[in-house]
């Protein structure tokens, strides 16, 4: 919300004697909770621009389209060359003298076609007042020649852009801000006396019917007849302009002006376009249509409130007026509305039809119903001052009075308990008085009566505590250390493990990415996730930003593949990345009210070269075993005496044969494989991509890491190398577990050290060479013992896998 400093000052007595700079003013407001986002000195934009008078002019001797004017600037007569034609001798004009900045250009004395020009006469557009660039701006006789332009038209002002918090509807107008300043500085707040006819409902010439007082507690109206349709005075237009509101016509401008000043939205109907002398505030009928003044047509429903005449809706209550009854150039008689609507209802309607307005923004926050009379009166006052309308006619007011008075008792002990500081009760009392909260000190308590405009936000004792802190000043409270007895900050085991794993993966060269949790139906289909039980059941967002964000992801895979593609596009081709994030899955039961499953996953993706060509090494592309090595690395950190197995699987997004499930101690914990080459190609990636995803929750919660000391023995071990020839299909895992089974407790380690395929052995066979390490912890092992075991191993391998020893 924007307000101007001069406007606020109208409600502060003797403000100028207090010598508060605009900057300090802004600070005071900011430090009271109404943040000043921006301060703009409007007056400084109009320096060296003054009111001038054209005393004479002739055609430019050497240019048909230009005139050479003599302009009285108050101190002298200046020669100015002008391109416009819309003036005559004696016109009052806006004159930019050398040094002025107009449209971003500094005005200088110069020669135009041989004639000296000592300034420029400005159009409204050049002055930033409107889009009117047709000719220069001509002012009426009331302006004094030589005066500063900005001062003459109310632009010598400071605009403050405020952020009013939603709990302070009373601050949505100039008056509210003035009241705050008064409480904060002690400068006296005053509302000038207004002239208006205060009589209420003296006749029943106009009827206001309210269907539901819950939705509309008050509807106040006044009829103004035979209004003089003159132009909005410049000072008023400019105030609206400074507050970002476009001038439309005097009546509309006045409604906006009063709203900005009081916070009470007003609406004016062309009374002659209403069906009769009756207004009905009712719920809309289902599918009732209304065309609004923004030219949009809205279809309403029964939850929405409308203002109607006896035929049809003429406005959506509190949001926007209807086109059919809007003020137009021929309007003679108006019906002015100042109503109070139910905030939540306005908010719901505004959301539903997707239309917010200055009015709805105020009603949403529950404004004070006592404002309506005041706003109608102020309208009459200003209208009268501008047009000489007079003070006449009663106000029609339909108001179902509700309780607006609230008494709250504040315990000073409570103040100390919450704020940590003893604030003297007289100080508190003074703060309340400044806020216009009636109060009386009773022992250690202060009894208060809350004013109507704070009724909605000052409900409880704690609300008063906040008011005290706010006005007293947050900066005046000391910092008090909290005591630490009896507690100790720490990570849980789970949290620690997750952070360690993250660090470990970085330490081995992977970079951590973080992606949005969303995915699109396209992605789901492309990766055929809907066909995998583990990866289907995406949670759907009812109101996504766009289709890319419609679902929550069930796997991190597509996001990481996108990261790979994006980086390859930046010519970074050798990539190792991981992400630790939650995935989401609908629970299988039908119940819509249960929260989905959330599982922490860790996804790792590798692609490109694993070893770069260098002065000492040959380059090597990433393959499956690089990724498996990473798996084994984190597995080895956390799983002692355990079994890690990769089980062949059939995930559709993986290569049909490089496709595995990860099992640790028999429990399935993730997947590992090569991304299906077609998916990779589709993503326009020209290199193999490998991916692994672990269920981090399962992985961490099943960590097996009992630490127990075992004596180190110094008895020598015996290494035996063993090469066997087997069929291609025989898996290393099976051979190793067979070797281990026969190896007895003496076999401490089995290590595959070579695989050979080639001319020296049969086709479709491979030679696997293992190094076996034997040791007995309590004595020196004899070669003969080992020979017996190795013989047994070979026999078993022969039986089981038809393995032949390779000589």
């Amino acid at each position, binding site marked *: 919300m924007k307000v101007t400093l001069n406007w606020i000052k109208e409600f502060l007595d003797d403000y100028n004697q207090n010598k508060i700079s605009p900057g300090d003013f802004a600070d005071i407001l900011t430090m009271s909770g109404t943040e000043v986002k921006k301060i703009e000195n409007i007056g400084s934009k109009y320096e060296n621009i003054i009111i001038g008078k054209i005393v004479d002019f002739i055609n430019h001797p050497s240019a048909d389209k230009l005139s050479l004017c003599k302009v009285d600037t108050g101190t002298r007569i200046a020669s100015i060359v002008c391109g416009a034609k819309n003036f005559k001798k004696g016109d009052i004009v806006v004159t930019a003298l050398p040094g002025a900045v107009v449209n971003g250009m500094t005005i200088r004395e110069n020669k135009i076609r041989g004639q000296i020009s000592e300034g420029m006469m400005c159009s409204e557009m050049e002055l930033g007042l409107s889009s009117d660039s047709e000719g220069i701006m001509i002012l009426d006789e009331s302006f004094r020649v030589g005066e500063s332009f900005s001062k003459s038209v109310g632009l010598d002002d400071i605009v403050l852009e405020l952020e009013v918090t939603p709990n302070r509807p009373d601050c949505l107008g100039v008056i509210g801000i003035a009241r705050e300043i008064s409480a904060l500085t002690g400068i006296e707040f005053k509302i000038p006396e207004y002239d208006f006819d205060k009589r209420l409902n003296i006749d029943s010439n106009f009827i206001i019917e309210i269907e539901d007082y819950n939705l509309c507690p008050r509807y106040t109206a006044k009829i103004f007849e035979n209004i003089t349709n003159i132009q909005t005075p410049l000072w008023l237009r400019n105030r609206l302009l400074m507050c970002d509101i476009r001038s439309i016509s005097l009546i509309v401008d006045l409604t906006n002006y009063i709203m900005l000043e009081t916070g009470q939205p007003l609406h004016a109907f062309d009374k002659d376009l209403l069906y009769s002398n009756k207004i009905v505030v009712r719920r809309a009928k289902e599918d009732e249509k209304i065309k609004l003044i923004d030219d949009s047509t809205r279809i309403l429903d029964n939850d929405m409130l409308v203002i109607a005449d006896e035929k049809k809706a003429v406005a959506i209550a509190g949001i926007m007026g209807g086109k059919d009854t809007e003020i137009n150039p021929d309007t003679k008689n108006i019906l002015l509305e100042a109503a109070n609507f139910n905030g939540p209802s306005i908010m719901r309607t505004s959301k539903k039809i997707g239309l917010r307005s200055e009015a709805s923004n105020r009603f949403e926050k529950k404004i004070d119903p006592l404002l309506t009379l005041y706003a109608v009166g102020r309208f009459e006052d200003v209208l009268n001052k501008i047009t000489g309308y007079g003070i006449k006619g009663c106000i029609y007011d339909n108001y179902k009075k509700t309780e607006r008075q609230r008494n709250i008792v504040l315990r000073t002990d409570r103040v100390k308990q919450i704020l940590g500081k003893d604030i003297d009760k007289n100080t508190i009392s003074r703060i309340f008085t400044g806020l216009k909260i009636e109060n009386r000190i009773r022992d250690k308590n202060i009894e208060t009566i809350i004013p109507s405009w704070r009724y909605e936000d000052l409900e409880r004792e704690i609300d008063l*505590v*906040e008011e005290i802190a706010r006005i007293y000043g947050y900066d005046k409270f000391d910092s*008090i250390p909290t005591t630490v007895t009896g507690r100790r900050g720490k990570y849980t085991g789970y949290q620690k493990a997750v952070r360690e794993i993250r660090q470990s993966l970085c330490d081995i060269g992977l970079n951590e990415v973080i992606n949005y949790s969303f995915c699109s139906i396209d992605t789901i289909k492309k990766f055929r996730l809907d066909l995998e039980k583990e990866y289907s059941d995406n949670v759907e967002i009812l109101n996504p930003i766009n289709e890319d964000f419609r679902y929550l992801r069930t796997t991190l895979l597509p996001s990481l593949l996108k990261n790979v593609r994006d980086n390859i596009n930046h010519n970074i081709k050798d990539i190792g990345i991981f992400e630790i994030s939650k995935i989401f899955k609908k629970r299988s039961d039908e119940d819509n009210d249960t929260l*989905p499953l959330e599982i922490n996953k860790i996804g790792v993706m590798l692609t490109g070269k694993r070893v770069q060509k260098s002065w000492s090494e040959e380059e090597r592309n990433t393959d499956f075993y690089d990724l498996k090595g990473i798996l084994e690395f984190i597995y080895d950190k956390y799983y002692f005496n355990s079994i890690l197995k990769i089980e062949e699987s059939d995930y559709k997004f993986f290569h049909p044969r490089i496709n595995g499930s990860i099992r640790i101690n028999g429990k399935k914990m993730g997947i590992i494989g090569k991304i299906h080459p077609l998916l990779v190609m589709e993503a326009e990636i020209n290199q193999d991509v490998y991916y692994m995803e672990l269920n981090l929750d399962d992985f961490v919660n099943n960590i097996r890491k009992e630490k127990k000391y075992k004596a180190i023995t110094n008895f020598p071990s015996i290494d035996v190398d063993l090469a066997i020839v087997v069929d291609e299909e025989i898996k290393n895992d099976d051979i190793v577990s067979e070797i281990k089974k026969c190896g007895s407790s003496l076999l401490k380690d089995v290590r595959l050290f070579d695989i050979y395929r080639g001319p020296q052995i049969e086709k479709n066979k491979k030679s696997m060479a293992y190094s076996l390490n034997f040791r007995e912890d309590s004595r020196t092992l004899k070669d003969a013992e080992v020979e017996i075991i190795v013989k047994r191993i070979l026999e078993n391998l022969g039986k089981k896998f038809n393995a032949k020893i390779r000589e």
Partner: protein
Amino acid sequence: MIQKLLKNWLKLQRKNLHKIMDEKEKIDDINNLIESELVNFTRELDNVKSLSELESVKTKYTGKKSFLTVTLRNIGSLPVQLRPIIGNKSNAARKKIEADILKKEQFLKGIEYEKKLREESIDLSLPGRGIKAGRKNIISSVIEEIEEIFIGMGFEIAEGPEVETDYYNFEALNTPADHPARSLHDTFFVSDSILLRTHTSPVQIRYMEKNKPPIFIIVPGKVYRRDYDVTHTPMFTQIEGLVVDKDINFGNLKWTIETFAYEIFGRKRKVRFRPHYFPFTEPSAEVDVSCNICGGKGCRSCSGSGWLEILGAGMVDPNLYKFVGYDPEEVSGFAFGMGIERICMLKYGIDDLRLFFENDLRFIDQF
């Protein structure tokens, strides 16, 4: 020369064989000879520069014809009473010579080895065989940094679901359905009552439901709002803090936040608390740190104010305690919340929010 001396000496011996002579004199003579042999040896050894020179010195003083060898070989020809004296003396001298030679030999060998090693030079400036460190995401590292600060102040870390119920996200946080503050949180809905959490604050309620004071927790996590433009991403990261105990007050809140801000932004920054409004705290505050670019004078980065907003905070609204069964007269507390991306931007001068989720490795690699 030695030979000559020796000969003379032996001649003398023989000549006086049967005479009783002044034994002391004889011993002195021999001692003098041994002493001078040692002096000569030491001088020559000092001048030795190579192993071959050392070899000749070695032969000269310990070889067959050396003075000491000859003396010892001929010891039997001396009077019985002189033999042990001369023998001991000669042996000791010989041992010393041998030891010195060995020492010198080791020394010279060391020098020669060193010389050989010096020929084996490599180019130390060649790059090492790569173990490249990866980078933690900036968001993770700043979260961990913040966690450590608070752990140091006795906090624990709590977490909660990202898909939440309306109850935890709004209602129990004092934000009922028609509350105006709801319009500040544009929400993604999964159903009428289930949504993507718009802040980490629901964890406050979940944690209080399950635990009794004292409560000192911080809550990191992803949150979601239906906003997507240059300054908003539909997902971002927050850290929430909650402290509830007997006698927790606004001064404690100030201390905690100031301590945090000094740790993360440095001691030189000023911290200010400014009144604000949140439905679930009262009194509420926004917290600013002084702008590091202009030092608080006002510049473009801080839009002229000299201050940069870092977080929202306040005393827990007593209404919340009713939702979780605490007695608001018995306990009090404070809460705070901040956007991690914003902290990162302020800390590292990052000017584009979208960088955080584009996962450009040229960005990730910088932190």
